[in-house]
């Protein structure tokens, strides 16, 4: 520090930075942060509070949820208690599953991967808040006992004589009007909508358009950008409450819904044992004058944001609320979710099978153009996780490991019908195996079809399972459930040793990809729900992580190319499958983006796909992050139409309005001519 130089000279700055770096060189790292300690902490947490946040968040973020699968189950503590639960619960089966009649089935505790179904059940509502409190305590005790690996069983009080009572089964009577398709043309201009899970069910996203303006989630703010002119125009900025984190927006018919999660801090007794409580809020704005957005209403409910869906002008807001298991009985707001500041009444809380639980999925509906008007709210107690919303029903699923009535992992399914803003519980059940993502569950003609990866969880010694337990054996199952969630058809033990990487149900045919070394693309005939059958199995290297129908008889796969050893990925791979004959599916074209090691197709909303325009786009990761757009020709195959290296690591969306293509990444929007992708304008928000 002797010489005096220009303070801002680069070399000098570098030197100060080096000093700073040097000064931190010998920083003592607290023992608690050493990787080994962190591992212990995670295992502990997984063991005791297994049902908490993680699975939910995994599942909650759209398709990002996915791989809950395998390895994890080996880490849980398995006690004999599992077995007792199984015996009890099987007695309560509302219906004998086809499995139980299966002569192959041996007694409980046998080691082969079996599928035992608990049976479908009606959704009953809570008697009172005390009943809920007891369930939460039962859940807590269960895990505490499991954690201490107590000799004595923890099954006290959890005899699973699940009540079947006042809830009524509901039939499929509402067909519902179409809420819009993959693209719209309000204002007479064609534009692209978010790539949604279910045609006809709208979804929020980080960038939306109504065909006129762009609505963009930009950090803690929402920006409205006009696209009417050649150059984009920043019209308005909406700031949400301080400390709130906008997740998504949805724009339609002059209204804009902004969904965010806010945390409210409650002081504890001495100011240090306070806690945060999360609320999910939807603010609705009138944006008929996009320069002067006007807030017209607000919905607030407990829990953090899971997803929202829009159909028939109604918004359905789903959040996940975790009960404070340490709360006193009289402190109801710590364990009963609220909507608009009021506790949800017991007749709107659906109780779980098994008499235990600590999480809820809270669902509220409201009219987009009258958010403070008639609303409906329900809380589905005992589940929160991946949600699939068909045009008529909301399915809330949760992966279950190790705790259940089965020696394999399971998925619980709770079904709530919806239409015109009304919500009503329909039923609940469990199936063996876990879902890869929301494309692994699909409703068609009243039937629910699922493809799951089944992993054995039992047969382990009591106590903590060693870290390096051999990988559990896996296989895959396909189920067809009727509208009461009774299994009517199934195929089991598919692709042993592999797990599902992607799936897509297209009407009466289902396609799914499993992977270990090669990529079998299975096609399944589902035309007879009671007798699904495998039509074909195409084996090619690599795997597809996302499948998208691409016009007549074609299915696009985006995934990874993998070498023969099944270990090294060789780049991002595009495959076009000819599915015109589902029993003879062929890969007709492929394309590998070398040196790229991943894509964001994990979140289907990040995929731009317009089959009519013959364009699809996504972000690929390599040494840098790139947005790529491709077209497809049956003779010449895939052709890259556009590539743009992106600056950071945020999410990117591509969409078009009229003849312009917009690339939204972080706080930057670039405008291109849709024809030829020549850059027209850019805007930094």
């Amino acid at each position, binding site marked *: 520090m002797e010489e005096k130089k220009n303070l801002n000279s680069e070399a000098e*700055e570098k030197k100060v930075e080096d000093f700073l770096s040097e000064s931190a060189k*010998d920083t003592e790292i607290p023992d608690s942060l050493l990787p080994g300690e962190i591992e212990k902490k995670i295992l502990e947490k997984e063991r005791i509070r297994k049902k908490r946040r993680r699975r939910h968040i995994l599942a909650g973020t759209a398709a990002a949820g996915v791989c809950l*699968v395998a390895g994890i189950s080996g880490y849980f503590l398995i006690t004999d208690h599992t077995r007792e639960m199984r015996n009890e619960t099987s007695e309560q089966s509302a219906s004998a599953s086809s499995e139980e009649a299966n002569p192959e089935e041996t007694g409980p505790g046998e080691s082969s991967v079996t599928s035992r179904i608990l049976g479908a059940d009606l959704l009953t509502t809570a008697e009172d808040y005390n009943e809920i409190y007891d369930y939460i305590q039962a859940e807590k005790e269960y895990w505490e006992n499991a954690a201490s690996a107590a000799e004595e069983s923890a099954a006290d009080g959890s005899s699973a004589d699940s009540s079947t009572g006042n809830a009524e089964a509901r039939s499929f009577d509402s067909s519902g009007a179409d809420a819009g398709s993959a693209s719209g043309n309000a204002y007479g201009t064609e534009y692209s909508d978010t790539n949604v899970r279910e045609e006809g069910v709208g979804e929020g996203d980080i960038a939306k358009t109504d065909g006129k303006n762009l609505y963009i989630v930009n950090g803690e703010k929402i920006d409205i950008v006009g696209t009417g002119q050649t150059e984009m125009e920043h019209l308005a900025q909406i700031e949400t409450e301080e400390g709130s984190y906008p997740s998504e927006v949805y724009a339609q018919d002059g209204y804009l819904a902004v969904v965010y999660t806010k945390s409210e801090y409650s002081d504890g007794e001495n100011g240090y044992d306070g806690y945060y409580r999360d609320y999910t809020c939807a603010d609705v704005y009138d944006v008929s004058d996009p320069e002067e957005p006007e807030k017209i209403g607000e919905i607030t409910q407990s829990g953090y944001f899971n997803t929202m869906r829009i159909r028939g002008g109604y918004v359905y807001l789903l959040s996940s609320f975790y009960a404070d298991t340490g709360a006193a009985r009289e402190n109801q707001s710590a364990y009963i979710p609220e909507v608009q500041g009021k506790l949800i009444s017991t007749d709107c809380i659906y109780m779980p099978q098994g008499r235990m639980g600590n999480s809820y999925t809270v669902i509220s509906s409201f009219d987009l153009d009258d958010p403070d008007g008639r609303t409906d709210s329900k809380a589905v107690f005992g589940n929160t996780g991946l949600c699939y919303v068909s045009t008529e029903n909301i399915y809330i699923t949760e992966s279950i490991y190790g705790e259940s009535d089965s020696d394999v992992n399971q998925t619980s399914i709770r079904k709530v019908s919806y239409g015109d803003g009304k919500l009503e519980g329909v039923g609940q059940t469990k199936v063996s195996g876990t879902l890869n993502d929301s494309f692994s569950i699909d409703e068609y003609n009243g039937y629910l079809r699922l493809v799951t990866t089944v992993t054995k969880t039992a047969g382990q010694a009591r106590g903590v399972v060693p870290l390096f337990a051999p990988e559990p054996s896996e296989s895959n199952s396909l189920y067809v459930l009727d509208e009461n969630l009774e299994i009517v058809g199934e195929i089991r033990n598919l692709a042993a040793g592999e797990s599902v990487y992607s799936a897509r149900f297209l009407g009466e045919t289902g396609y799914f990809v499993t992977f270990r070394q090669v990529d079998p693309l299975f096609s399944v005939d589902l035309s007879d729900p009671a007798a699904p059958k495998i039509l074909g199995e195409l084996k090619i290297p690599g795997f597809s992580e996302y499948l998208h129908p691409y016009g007549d008889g074609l299915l696009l796969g985006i995934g990874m190319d993998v070498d023969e050893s099944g270990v090294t990925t060789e780049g991002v791979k595009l495959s076009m499958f000819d599915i015109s004959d589902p029993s003879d599916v062929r890969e007709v074209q492929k394309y590998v983006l070398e040196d790229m*090691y991943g894509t964001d197709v994990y979140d289907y909303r990040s995929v731009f796909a317009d089959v009519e325009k013959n364009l699809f786009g996504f972000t690929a990761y390599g040494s840098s992050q790139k947005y790529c757009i491709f077209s497809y020709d049956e003779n010449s195959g895939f052709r890259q139409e556009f590539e743009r290296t992106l600056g950071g*690591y945020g999410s990117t969306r591509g969409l078009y309005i009229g003849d312009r293509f917009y690339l939204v990444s972080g706080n930057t929007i670039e405008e291109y001519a849709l024809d030829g992708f020549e850059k027209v304008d850019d805007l930094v928000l």
Partner: protein
Amino acid sequence: MYDHEKGTEADLIRRAKRGDVKAFSGLYSKIYVDLYKFALYTTKHKQDAEDAVSETVMTAWEKLGQLKKEESFRSWMFTILNNQCRKILKKRKQEAVLELADRERIGIRGENGDEPDHAEIQDVRAAFGTLDEEERMILAFSVFAGYQSEEIGRMLECSPGTVRSKKSRALGKLRRILENAG
């Protein structure tokens, strides 16, 4: 058995997402020193830094599904850590327990800890502690996270140009303090 040391990051992420704690720990082991340094320098408080990193790693484990497939784990972790540190700083402001913060300020060891003899290092740390929150964030991002101005700008919601000039100013400030001290 899978070798967690040698796996590529993409592979480790995939395994971690499937619940492989060892894979996750493998990812974490490569960056935890930098994470802690970042937290220590921005919060200026050992316990807060420890809490911030601890909270970050548990959050990351829980939210791993939100990590874009094979997005840079490091960058993602720093994003979470940044939020944690800001939350802590904000809360601290609200609670105004600055006294405590000062007492446990970095560089000043506890009663049992030996005072290190790197006088210069102490100076740098003390000088760093005088910078304001935003300046500390910017420099910590640059030095410990290895971020470019664009990335820092995205984290702190300002333009790269602003970051560059603020960084310049902060470094200049640091230098002046060090010159006067030395």
